[in-house]
């Protein structure tokens, strides 16, 4: 089955006519992704890379039956792009842009609440179900079809984790980058739920990193999950306290719990298999699934 996207996903691309969008849309098409429409305001009725372009998301859906979107729009237009996707009731929106203002993301989170649309990102490489669909900017040559789910906050470490799964001579059911930002759409909790219901995923590789509390929240949730699948977790950032300091408000919220060690302890306590380095994922996977 895989999660969220597969070969039946009909994809539209918001901001399809940009150079970066064109580069990656071409790659996604070659990959076999069913890209059915592009959306660029003011360019409705034209064609780009052989794909019909519409002026609005609603028009694109009405004409093509698209149910998911990849957004290549610049950061400052993301809020409106997500609004359009939510109002058109798309199942999934993937936002690649880096540098979306935090206040915009807070408003976007409010829009998503109670809506039909799930958002991946921003600042994400996207989501890929190997051999079926590539929504985003993943290097397409590294993924292999298999039964390990991969989810990560960092884009770059997503690739690192995928390579580890390959080295274990296994493949991926679906790979998701949640996005590197402070405020994002889907988080570990939602993705863990998706993977736990997917009968083609046997184990999950989860890559966290310093900053925020996504890992702690995931650990809390995992601990209480009734039908747990094994999770192998890695947290980057043992050596460096990140960012420089200004005021105390951030520390008060975190109440001192800001190190990678705290995150790892929480995950271990919840029953995840926590590894010290990415290269240990391979052996753990082989232990689990052989």
């Amino acid at each position, binding site marked *: 089955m895989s999660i969220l996207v597969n070969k039946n996903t009909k994809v539209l691309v918001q901001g399809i006519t940009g150079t970066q969008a064109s580069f*990656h849309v071409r790659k996604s098409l070659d990959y076999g992704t069913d890209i059915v429409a592009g959306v660029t305001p003011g360019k409705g009725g034209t064609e780009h890379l052989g794909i019909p372009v519409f002026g609005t998301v609603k028009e694109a859906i009405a004409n093509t039956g698209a149910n998911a979107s990849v957004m290549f729009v610049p950061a400052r237009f993301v809020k409106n792009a997500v609004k359009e996707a939510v109002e058109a009731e798309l199942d999934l929106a993937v936002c690649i842009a880096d540098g979306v203002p935090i206040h915009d993301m807070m408003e976007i989170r409010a829009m998503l609440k109670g809506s039909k649309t799930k958002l991946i990102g921003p600042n994400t490489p996207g989501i890929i179900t190997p051999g079926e669909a590539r929504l985003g900017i993943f290097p397409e040559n590294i993924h292999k079809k298999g039964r390990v789910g991969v989810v990560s906050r960092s884009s770059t470490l997503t690739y690192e984790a995928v390579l580890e799964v390959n080295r274990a001579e296994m493949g991926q059911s679906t790979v998701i980058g949640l996005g590197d930002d402070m405020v994002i759409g889907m988080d570990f909790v939602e993705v863990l739920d998706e993977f736990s219901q997917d009968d083609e995923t046997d184990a999950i590789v989860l890559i966290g990193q310093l900053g925020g509390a996504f890992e702690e929240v995931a650990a809390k949730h995992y601990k209480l999950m009734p039908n747990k699948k094994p999770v192998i977790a890695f947290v980057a950032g043992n050596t460096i306290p990140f960012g420089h*300091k200004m005021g105390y408000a951030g520390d008060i919220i975190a109440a001192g719990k800001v190190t990678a060690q705290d995150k790892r302890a929480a995950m271990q306590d919840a029953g995840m298999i926590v590894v010290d380095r990415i290269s240990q994922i391979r052996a753990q996977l082989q232990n689990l699934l052989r």
Partner: protein
Amino acid sequence: MNIHEYQAKKILNRYGIFIPRGKVAYTPNEAKRAAVHVSLRGPWMLKAQIQSGARERGAFIGSSGRKGGIRLIKRRRDIIREAEQMLGETLVTAQTGPKGKFVSRIYVEAFQKVRKKFYAGLVINRVVPVLTLLLANLEDGGQSILDKALENPKEILKLKVDLNKGVSLRQIELARRFLQLEEPSRKHLQKFFNALHRAFVENDATMIEVNPAGVTKRGRIVALDAKMSFDNNAMYRHPEILRLQDDYEEEDRALKAAKFGFQYLEFEGGNIGCIVNGDGIALAAMDFIREKGLDACCFLNVKGGVDRDKIAAGIKIIMTNPKVEGILINILGGFLRCNLIAEGIIAAASEVGLNVPLVVRFEGTNKDTAKETLINSRLPLIIADTMEESVDKLIAAMEESE
């Protein structure tokens, strides 16, 4: 992006928050004139304008006195001497690191008598994420707000604030009781919170801190100190705030890197320069280096850079850092194409020379073309296939070149 206390106060004042009369000064003579301007008889506060907390308990490098960056001055004739001790000097606080920060200006303020002090912070909670108002009572000579957070978190009131509507009437009443203020103070508190909220929302702030806020005899609330941080990503819609950025606060190299849209960080100690294309891989690479007994001294995150010239300029920042004895480049291309990095490395090396060992590891988009480009360049660099291998090869090469 952060701004100075006097700039934050000016913004908050525009939203209706009371502040003591104050004026910024760049020279001791200016400080004296400013003092007379804000209060004829004093006393005055002299406050070093660096973007850091704990200034009062900080110390100036090279000064024998134990006086910090915030001083109460009672006699007008002392102002010039005290200002001289601060201006042009470097202040070290618990938040600046041992290098400290250069004091280019001081803020001269009329001393404001208050009968009570409290802490107020408005910040986006990363966990949930929601806008959160933080409040705590402060006693003179009592626990600092940070110690309270760590040891007595119950003494801090945390209220979730609606991003659009601000602090509710019920929350204001809760806050009033928590801060042990009399009934008539409610309207002052309401005005204060509303102003904080509007200043936060209308300026794309990520944090506003009034530490402390003072309550006057008549119940008015005065911001005795103020800090504001803003979302860099939203500064395109606030050019007036962007103009407040103080270049003294940024490291030269960081400033240069930021110009190209990259992130650059320097660390104490270490001798390896890292070039990466994401926070996650930066953290993982530095963890690896530490495991092998070495440390990174700086890293450059080129993010999703797609402009070859900018990438070359970024790489030059690392190549010309005298502390760097080895360079580790780990790129996992997705959006970013490896071949652009390869071309950037060659362009940078041809301009400033490649005098230290450099190991490159490419994975992802266009990695094969990238490797080929590097091999054809005949530069003395080393290519690795995994992150671990890249660290091992770099360390071996550094040992060899010693």
